[in-house]
């Protein structure tokens, strides 16, 4: 599956949607800092991987997909919910990258330059996340083509 860059999405997004993300992001970052101060780094650190923006992002995605379908005269609720579910699947894959980020910062930060470690960990996050995504897509494609071959042979139902 090819990756596309859709620059028009920037214009499609409403300013209030940007504001919601900014508010949620800012609020959760501030709360994380307060929790770390009150309860210590062991508990505070857990919140560095809090799904801060996910509920807002999934809701906005569902609403946008629904709106797209409604413009074509369809209800769109089912499509919107499926799109948010698919987005959650991608997020689950991305968490493996987040795990790599945390491991690198934990192990390397005490002995290396802070900015170099944060940079390397961010790079590790994106590389690991994309690798997991690409591996799962490759498996899905292989399964899909296998089902198509079986269908062509007449031994399986239509994929």
């Amino acid at each position, binding site marked *: 599956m090819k990756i*596309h860059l859709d620059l028009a999405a920037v214009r499609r997004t409403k300013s209030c949607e940007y504001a919601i*993300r900014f508010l949620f992001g*800012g609020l959760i970052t501030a709360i994380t800092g307060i929790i*770390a101060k009150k309860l210590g780094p062991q508990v505070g650190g857990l919140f560095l991987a809090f799904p801060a923006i996910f509920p807002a992002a999934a809701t906005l995605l569902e609403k946008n997909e629904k709106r797209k379908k409604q413009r074509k005269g369809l209800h769109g609720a089912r499509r919107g919910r499926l799109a948010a*579910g698919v987005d959650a699947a991608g997020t689950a894959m991305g*968490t493996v990258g987040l795990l790599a980020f945390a491991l690198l910062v934990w192990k390397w930060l005490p002995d290396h330059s802070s900015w170099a470690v*944060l940079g390397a960990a961010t790079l590790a996050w994106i590389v690991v996340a994309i690798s997991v995504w690409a591996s799962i897509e490759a498996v899905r494609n292989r399964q899909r083509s296998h089902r198509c071959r079986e269908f062509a042979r007449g031994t399986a139902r239509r994929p």
Partner: protein
Amino acid sequence: MEILFRALIGGVVVSAFALLGELFKPKRFAGLFGAAPSIALASLGFVIASNGKSYAALEARSMVGGAVAFFVYAYCVCVIMMKYKTSALLTSSALISVWAAAAFGVWLLWLR
């Protein structure tokens, strides 16, 4: 004042990653940005500057547990939404309790 500044930086970093996620297609790929280390990047700089590297490394150690909990959370949201077609707001908000349970489970078993 520090908390306000932290919130401002957090808002900017989280919005930037959310925007990146919106630019890409397909949706499954764009979803990767939902698990970007945005809060960590916004917070760790402050933590290193005010409490030192060892303190920040300790937070990162706990973040490993948070990331495992995030995986459990995102997987549950995905399965429930795909199977039952429930509302995104309801599902993703209600399942935050799953994240909390998983995170504190990891904390009790490994980090405490």
